[in-house]
């Protein structure tokens, strides 16, 4: 429950880039999609880069595969932990390759091509010292996640 409390007092790093985290359902990235051009975007741009028309907000899911990762051991920015991990993640539904934070508690477990699952939680601050909600990927796939949810009897409270 302490994490839930934190969630309520922290602001999201950038509005509109994730969904499904406030209500305990599955966190997913939100990007954009232009149906005319069949193009996906993350983050959602003002306009489709092909046709310059506004794009629809699109659920990009919370699952991906690790394309590259590294561990940042220098003095971290934005109150992030030292060390922390980042990587490029290939998103399952859209095929987009996105830069993202990786779960800093799993630094020793990252392997290329491993499945990842999105979390949204307080990680670092917003630049003015306020706690900040950031999306990050953790090891694990949808299947694992579903099992876990079954184990705990539902998705409302999760403490990974």
């Amino acid at each position: 429950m302490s994490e839930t409390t934190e969630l309520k007092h922290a602001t999201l790093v950038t509005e509109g880039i994730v969904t499904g985290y406030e209500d305990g359902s599955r966190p997913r990235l939100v990007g954009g999609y232009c149906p005319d051009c069949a193009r996906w975007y993350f983050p959602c741009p003002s306009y489709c880069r092909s046709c310059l028309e506004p794009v629809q907000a699109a659920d990009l899911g919370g699952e991906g595969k690790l394309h590259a990762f590294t561990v940042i051991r220098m003095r971290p920015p934005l109150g992030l932990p030292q060390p922390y991990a980042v990587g490029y993640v290939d998103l399952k539904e859209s095929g987009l390759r996105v830069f993202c934070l990786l779960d800093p508690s799993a630094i020793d477990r990252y392997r290329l091509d491993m499945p990842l699952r999105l979390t949204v939680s307080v990680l670092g601050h917003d630049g003015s010292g306020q706690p900040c909600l950031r999306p990050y990927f953790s090891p694990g796939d949808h299947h694992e996640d579903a099992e876990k949810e079954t184990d705990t009897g539902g998705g409302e409270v999760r403490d990974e």
Partner: protein
Amino acid sequence: MSEVVILGVGMIPFGRHPQKLLVEMAAEAARAALKDAAVEPGEVGAGFFSNGLAARLFSDHTIGQNVYWEVGINRIPIYNIENACTSASTAFCLACGQVAAGQVEVAMVVGAEKMYVPELGLIHSGQSELDTQLGLVAPAGFALRAKRHMAEFGTTEAQLAAVAVKNRRHAALNPNAQFRDPITPEDVLSAPMVVDPLTRLQCCPNADGAAAVVLASADFARWRRGASRGKVRPVDVRAAVYCTGSYANPQDLTHWETDERGCRLAYEAAGVGPEDLNVVECHDAFTISEILHYEALGLCPAGEGGRLAEAGETALGGRIPVNPSGGLLSRGHPPGATGAAQLCEIVAQLRGEAGPRQVPGARVGLAHCMGGDKAADSKSCTVVVLSV
């Protein structure tokens, strides 16, 4: 572009200059370039000034006019250009374009940066960018590339280290380089880890620095050479290409498409290929960068950059010396000045004035610069080909 020449260059030693204001450093480099070119302040028709950080660090702006007036240049158009690590080389491309078009006979580029101040903080792609807010500091983008390159091509930590060792060995021969004490592969690999697998000695250091270039039309250079002082030693600009990222998704992290495109466009414009080059300055912001740039420049096949470095082919005395100046890794990297400092080195090499680090008989040289991380691509790449 064969009608544009570099008439003169000048720079101050890169390093710590706590007693000098940015404008003072820039003016010192500008004055040196004017004297080297044997050009009077009143002959300069357009001035370009490049800087990356002074607005943020010192609340200074519109600095170019101040710099040029310090060397007696006023009234003419002065352009203030920012383009991350390629600030000075982008300014050079603009200047070349104006000279090539006959809009001015003589143009000048001055780049300067002052970084050794407590306010510097971490270098990033812009605080409002989502990637920055998600923790993308500058070395991380390169480290991710290194990891993919190692995974796909078997590039080793020893090969990465070889780049840092070589550039430091070169720097020992360059009085304008910031770090000149030799280092060993062991030094490199045992240095504190910054971002896996890049240790501190694989990341270019900050620097205070300034560098300047005087360009002119070939007609002006011929007239000046005939009419006067004999000191005029023009170097031909064969290509000056600037391009920006494609930002395609997904990006292949083992090379920058933008880098390859920039190099290809420059070779086409210059009418040369990698086999024609005698000396290269490239944007070795990190050891992995130099390896990737070898491949983009066609100095070796894709994936072979690490082995090229390890074999010593890019060292002074090797097949194609890269970064004889010491590169960003040992000269230091003041973003506003680096692109101009690279040109200073290539000009010195092509004139045969590089002293103990001279590449014998160098006739064709290339200066390559890249800057700005965006969508796993680079925001800018500049490639300049010079010859005598």
